[in-house]
């Protein structure tokens, strides 16, 4: 399996190269000018042009692309046009909040969605099933920012249980870290919970019809053991697949969630960079996200072997 993992990691290189070319080309042809933003509203056209030259944005496409690729190959993501800070540093500064948000959301989702899906399948057709599925449709339909505002209004402003905004690093304590993430994680997790709960229910319904489940029941196994040991384990592969695909949902949702809850993560960095046309930062983040996505897919493939011994690479 080690050689399989290595082969898959090597296979990411051409994917990353295509992503890099695509991103760079898109940014090059997109309208907008960082020099104009930097110069400010009172600057003269000559000032803007001088700044553009200073940034090297007046050079031909191929030269700009070549020098960017050369730097990437040397492990240098470049320097932000606006902040004059290395892109690597800026990404590292923002990695903690986003990673924390995604981990808490993922854990919350799995803890809530999988049992909900299992129970819905177990009680298929009953009022419990219908209620859970109604919640799933509701969660899937509500935009992240609407959920975010409602949560902030109720739990932060009205009850004053949790903060409205911000992020506290884990080094300053577990509870301060967690309390800043609870509301954003619920807001971001709503869609994800709905998705996983529905998939879990559908997959469980199929597994619960299998002969070995009937056998387990005939042997006198308890309902919990049947559902969570025998059935869920065999329903896990499609669930894991959707969990992996959902990481892309999380990345997209984090952009909105971080803005609503003022979390200084990669999502907000992305928005800021796009609005200002901070090309090196946009390129760095897109490369990172595409790499993470490829890596997550690899991890999913590896995880299959953990839940299903029949799968070998």
């Amino acid at each position, binding site marked *: 399996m080690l050689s399989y993992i290595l082969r898959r990691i090597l296979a990411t290189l051409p994917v990353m190269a295509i992503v890099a070319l695509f991103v760079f080309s898109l940014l090059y042809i997109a309208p907008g*000018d960082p020099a104009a933003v930097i110069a400010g509203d*009172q600057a003269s056209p000559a000032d803007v042009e001088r700044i553009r030259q200073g940034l090297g944005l007046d050079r031909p496409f191929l030269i700009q692309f070549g020098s960017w690729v050369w730097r990437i190959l040397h492990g240098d993501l470049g320097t932000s046009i606006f902040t004059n800070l290395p892109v690597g540093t800026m990404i590292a500064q923002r990695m903690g909040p986003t990673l924390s948000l995604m981990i808490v959301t993922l854990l919350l989702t799995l803890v809530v969605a999988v049992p909900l899906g299992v129970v819905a399948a177990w009680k298929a057709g009953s009022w419990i099933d219908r209620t859970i599925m109604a919640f799933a449709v509701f969660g899937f339909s509500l935009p992240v920012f609407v959920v975010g505002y409602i949560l902030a209004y109720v739990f932060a402003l009205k009850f004053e249980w949790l903060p409205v905004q911000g992020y506290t690093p884990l080094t300053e304590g577990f509870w301060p870290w967690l309390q800043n993430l609870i509301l954003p994680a619920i807001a971001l997790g709503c869609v994800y919970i709905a998705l996983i709960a529905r998939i879990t229910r559908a997959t469980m319904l199929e597994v619960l019809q299998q002969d070995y489940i009937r056998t387990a029941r005939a042997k006198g196994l308890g309902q919990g053991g049947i559902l969570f040991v025998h059935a869920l384990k065999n329903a896990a592969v499609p669930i894991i697949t959707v969990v992996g695909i959902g990481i892309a949902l999380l990345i997209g949702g984090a952009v909105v969630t971080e803005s609503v809850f003022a979390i200084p993560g990669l999502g907000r960095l992305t928005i800021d960079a796009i609005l200002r046309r901070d090309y090196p930062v946009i390129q760095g983040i897109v490369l990172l996200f595409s790499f993470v996505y490829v890596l997550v897919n690899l991890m999913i493939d590896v995880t299959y072997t953990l839940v299903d011994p029949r799968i070998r690479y």
Partner: protein
Amino acid sequence: MDRRTVLKGLAGAGGLALTGGISAPALAQGASARTLRFVPQANLANFDPIWGTQYVVRNAAALVWDMLYGLDSALQPQRQMVESEEVTDDGLIWTFRLRSGLKFHDGEPVRAKDVVASLTRWAARDPMGLMIKAIQNELTAVDDKTVKWALKQPYPKMLFALGKNNSPCAFIMPERIAQTDPFKQIGEYVGSGPMKFAKAEWVPGAKAVFEKFADYVPRQEKSSWLAGSKQILIDRVEWIVMPDPATAAAALQNGEVDWWESPITDLVPVLKSNRNIGVDIADPLGNIGSFRINHLYPPFDNVKVRRAVLMAMSQEDYMRALVGDDTSLWKPLPGFFTPNTPLYTEEGGEILKKSDLAAAKKLLEEGGYSGQPVTCLVAQDQPITKSQGDVTADLLKKLGMNVDFVATDWGTVGARRAQKTPPGQGGWNMFHTWHAGADCVNPAPYNAIRANGDKAWFGWPTSDTVEKEITTWFEAKSLEEEKASIGRLNKAALEDVVYAPTGFFLSYTAWRKNVSGIVKGPLPFFWGVSKTA
């Protein structure tokens, strides 16, 4: 590798994460009375006040860098880093002497050579600086405390130029930093202002931190805007960037921040209803709304068409769309200069005082408008430009013009407005913006009023009369002379329609009531501000 090996590996990694990643709980930093948490109007994305001239950079820079002079609330330049100045009778040689005891944040004394390098860099970017540079003989350090600026012709507005609060301000930096190319960004943020910039804590887009500079030597005079004593009463100011106004409003109500620089008008009633929050006008100099017209191409290369638009427009429509129905926040502006300032005038402003659609349509016909599309750039991500754009589109349609409404973002408008190509080939006919009232108090910092054709601001208007009156104002020796020239300038600028002012509007600022000392001004002043627990 089998399944059990991988499981063991994951378990080990998890254990490592738990022991190494989650350290013993530390005490969270509480909201101390010595720390002021401030939500700025925008993200502090860079921190070079000469290279990047956005207002948010200027506002932060005023904490870190000091100036030779500072403009007070009467718009008069007062000595700041300077102890005394002399000017020869012919007005050609200025000599400035620095105050004693001035230090940079790295402990080095402020020397004349630092001033020379800083003013040289500033003069390469600032419109007034460029004018001085054009008539400069030499700028030299006579000794450690004395700077001499020799000119080829007098420049009566010298002290205003050195003390003005319009970007870029003449901030003084150490020589080694100020020697940076003015079109490249500095990487070291050392000043001699009342607060130090905590670079290590800077997360662009999220947070910027300033700490009290213990060795700062404030002036003895009472504080007034950028002049007088800049006495800092708190230890630390944290700028917390919040792109979402609703979040900022909630954070202020919840006591998670202390001062929000620019709450949007829609949320002000909510803030006013909270007994723990104070709300007031932020800046008495306010803002002037504007739509710029491209003078290079039809139909707006014809002054009759430009005047037809001016004649048809209702500033009230713009202001209600932009600010709302709170009439204490806006008023019509039949001119270009900031109301309630010494040079304010309405001379020639009749055309803006009453909308006359019928007369405007007639003038448009006389101007030979033949139905060509009018490319109107409207940035949708800026509430001010979006609301103005919507009103303009409606206005042009009422006039019978064919509107090509380009809904886009500010980044695209910023790039496209610099294009001098015809509107159908990547150019434009009009875009919307606004000017800080502080920039419109006189012609010196007011790029948008210039009408020197190719060298003018976007739209490239040409008006010999406007330019002549700007020169006359610069040479004026008394306030009466200045007022006379500004009156003529205002009239000429409206006749030629340099741009279309859409009205004058104010905005609010809001703070927790345990914060005191906030003053109204063109930028947030942190000196004199204190906070109780």
